[in-house]
């Protein structure tokens, strides 16, 4: 597979390490009332869609960016690649 890195252009997927569902960005608030329940879902529950899937890839032998790659799990077509830090900020994550 080839991942079109937003900063570096097309790179072979062999340069990357795969982590999984990009929902790992949505880490719950530890002080929420049902934090235990939220963390349980965060740590263990994943969607497994046949189709578009947003997932985290780490450019380990490259520039060490975490990327959010939107990949079709049926065809491996990659429709979008974003910097994970941009996605995290857009979801309100900061410090």
């Amino acid at each position, binding site marked *: 597979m*080839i991942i079109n890195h937003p900063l570096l252009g097309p790179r072979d997927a062999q340069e990357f390490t795969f982590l999984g569902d990009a929902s790992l*960005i949505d880490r719950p608030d*530890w002080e929420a009332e049902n934090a235990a329940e939220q963390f349980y879902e965060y740590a263990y529950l994943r969607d497994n869609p046949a189709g578009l899937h947003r997932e985290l890839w780490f450019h380990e032998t490259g520039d060490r960016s*975490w990327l959010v790659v939107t990949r079709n799990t049926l065809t491996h077509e*990659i429709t979008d690649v974003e910097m994970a*830090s941009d996605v995290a*900020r857009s979801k309100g*994550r900061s410090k």
Partner: protein
Amino acid sequence: MTDNKQTNRLTGGQIDTSRSLKFSFDGKNYAGHPGDTLASALLANNVRLMGRSFKYHRPRGVLTAGSEEPNALVELRSGARQEPNTRATTAELFDGLEAKSQNRFPSLKFDAMAINDRFSHFLTAGFYYKTFMWPAAFWEKLYEPIIRKAAGLGSLSLQEDPDEYDKGFLHCDLLIIGGGPSGLAAALRSGRAGAQVILADEDFVFGGRLNAETYEIGDQSGQAWIAAAIAELEAMPNVRCMARTSVLGAFDHGIYSAVERVSDHLAVPPKGKPRQILWRIYSKRALVCAGAIERPIAFENNDRPGIMLASAMRAYANRWAVTAAPRVAVFTNNDDGHRTAVDLLAKGVKVTAVIDTRADAPRIADCELLAGAQVIDTAGRLGLNYVKIQQADGSERTIECGALGVSGGWNPNVHMTCHQRGRPVWNDAIAAFVPGDTGTPGMSVAGAAQGDFSTAAALQTGSDQAAAALHDLGIDAPAIDLPQAEDTPVNLQPFWYVKHGKGRAWLDQQNDVTVKDVKLAHQENFRSVEHLKRYTTLGMATDQGKTSNMGGLAIMAELAGKSIPEVGTTMFRPPYTPVPMGTMGGRARGKHFHPVRETPSHKYSTENNATFVEVGNWLRAQWFTKPGETHWRETVDREVNAVRGSVGVCDVTTLGKIDIQGTDAAQFLNKVYANAFAKLAVGKTRYGLMLREDGIAMDDGTTARLAEDQFVMTTTTANAVNVYRHLEFVRQCLFPDMDVQLISTTEAWAQYAVAGPNSRKLLQKIVDPEFDISNEGFEFMACREITVCGGLRARLFRISFSGELAYEIAVPTRYGDALFRKIMEAGQEFDVVPYGTEALGVMRIEKGHAAGNELNGTTTALNLGMGRMVSKKKDSIGSTLSEREGLNQPDALMLVGFKPVNNADKVTAGGHLMTKGTPKDAEHDQGYITSAAFSPSLNSSIGLGFLKDGGNRLGEVMILTTPLTGADVEVEVVSAHFVDPEGERLRA
């Protein structure tokens, strides 16, 4: 002695008869010519018998003239270069080639295992599944070895392969798979347009099927046109023509793999050249010009040597000037088969008859035509002597022939179009599957692979599809003049197998699958094509059913009362043709399987008789044997005693080091460590425990605060990469606005532990005098940037893994070797020793420090005795889930120490702990030993382990059971801190 009688050699062909090449087959010597394959040379020498079949050991000869060959598998070469299961039809002849037949004993002509053929009614489809079901224990020891011995193909040399294999990477605008007429036309058009083109063909000459035919292209011979086209293409800098290169598979995003056989056609690879290269080709567009493969018709005893595809018979005659026998016949259901008779007649071969299943068969060749007739049986023990015909009127007749060309029509070679889940679609006009939606973006198909069988159509579609592919890329490829070429329409009546007779009609000759086997599979309800394949083994092994699958599908369709497209095909998967393991491995062989990382003290260690241990990619000194030491334990005990008695030095560079900088660095560490870090003072070091988000311990290590905004974290050697990845995840994905930057500095600093009561005195000789490292000036857990040896920058940490007064000192890696030697020199007066990982491990077990064995992916902070370290006042990774009820049971496993009650007994890591008097089973399991060693300090075997409610069971005597060895030992539960439990030494 060479038996140089090529009695079956004809005139013409693309062989160089001015030169002779000697070769041997089963020890007998023959001669052929440059341009021959092993198969064509054997046929020229009147050798039709080339192998024995897989299951029944039936005599077999060539079926094809290409890579789809199911039968003629041979062993090439001898000694370490011996190579099994090579197709004689693709093996290029070279002088001195040694070939042997396979799967026969004692000889090819008399094979004892042919007795299987007599028991064939037992050995039908599913035989193995039905027969070797029980008892299960017999499988491994009895059934499998017997089956493997009986049903094997070639044998391995069991010697190291002396040749080298490479891997390479190529990029192109257009990859053209196949160099026949369509591929050449595509290459000419795209090459002239200036596109970056790769043209790959598995054969050693370009031209594909044109080499096997007598067609003219324009006003020149097919071969002359090919030669001109290749000359033009090879002169273009933007075109790379790759012969002997099989494209193996289509992968995601335009990536293709291919194997180039660089030196297979030579006795020994030229110096510096690999045997084969595995290419990874990045293409923007790909054009499949893979041609078509003829399919046989099944009839009784259709597997005798001499019976082959009509196209193969024609190829041997036209390209290699060979006929398999002086008298031949043809059996066909289409017009194309007749051309074999025409071409062989033109070469002066006696064609006794053309047998055509069609009642209205046209007369094309100038020989006897039997229209509406079928071949119903054959005879000849080790090769065909005659065929038995049922004529249109039902009468039977015998025809003498030493070879029979069979044509059941052609299958477009759709293989490559299906690797990305593409499914072929049925085309009634040619009664064959053609590529459908390939599911492969950027791929298109031209020529016979698309079902356009005539040469004119191949040229036209190749040219058109190349232009269309380049147009997509914004490259304008002007039309090229295409020469006049043959444009014969397909004229065929589907005919799959002869129904006459009760004998066996072979569908898949490689796996000995008959028409009956398919019927049996259907009868036993294995009706899906995928089940059919697994149950009968139809289409498996080296040829992947390239000549047999269609026949099986057609019969299954007939039995199921369905159409062939309704039955469908099995999946096509890479590789297209077999690839040697050596090629897959490339250079990553033996010690080159992964890179070796050497520590800065490696050279010193080598010079000082170190034994090394692999730790991931690292090579670490395990111990340093001194003259006279006869056992590793003797060495390790000495090293431990030397450290605890005076001072020792150990290379700990392999531990991961991560430099963490930024105004939010402290806050960041607070997130990734379970214990508090924000208030760590500058100049101090702290032990940190890192959890996974699920609350399980991930890694531990010390982190030093060198400045308000700079920390240096250490990780375990094994987790250095994972921890760094995790930290970047936390930084980029969870807290993107923290002002913090990370970089791995593992290889930037050489770091040594200097441990033992005399460690300070030793270091004071090295550390520059302006730095006070006295106990008061540099207390336990202090860290500082210093200089050593008169100005060399260094870092000093007062941390201890051994439990002794100890330091770790780091210098830039390029000074690592010098510093190690300097420490050894300065320490001479203290009898300093270098110590390895084994002594390091013994001392950390004596001290009760957790390491990888304890941080094993199942244990929590609580289990490790660090439950109270997990701060509840802050959010950190894993803190919330570490509080789960299930991880905090009152009888949770706790890390404790163990000593044998009888001093002579041994504590064994991996053993399980049982309460005395209870049954030794999983239900009563109380815990397990994680680490064990002989402690020279206690003169006893000791261990660390996890025990239920361990903290409250000190003093209890338990049974340590090791079911693997059957050893049961009484052990006493003790504190994990065997040595200096109060920690007085490391604060001294």
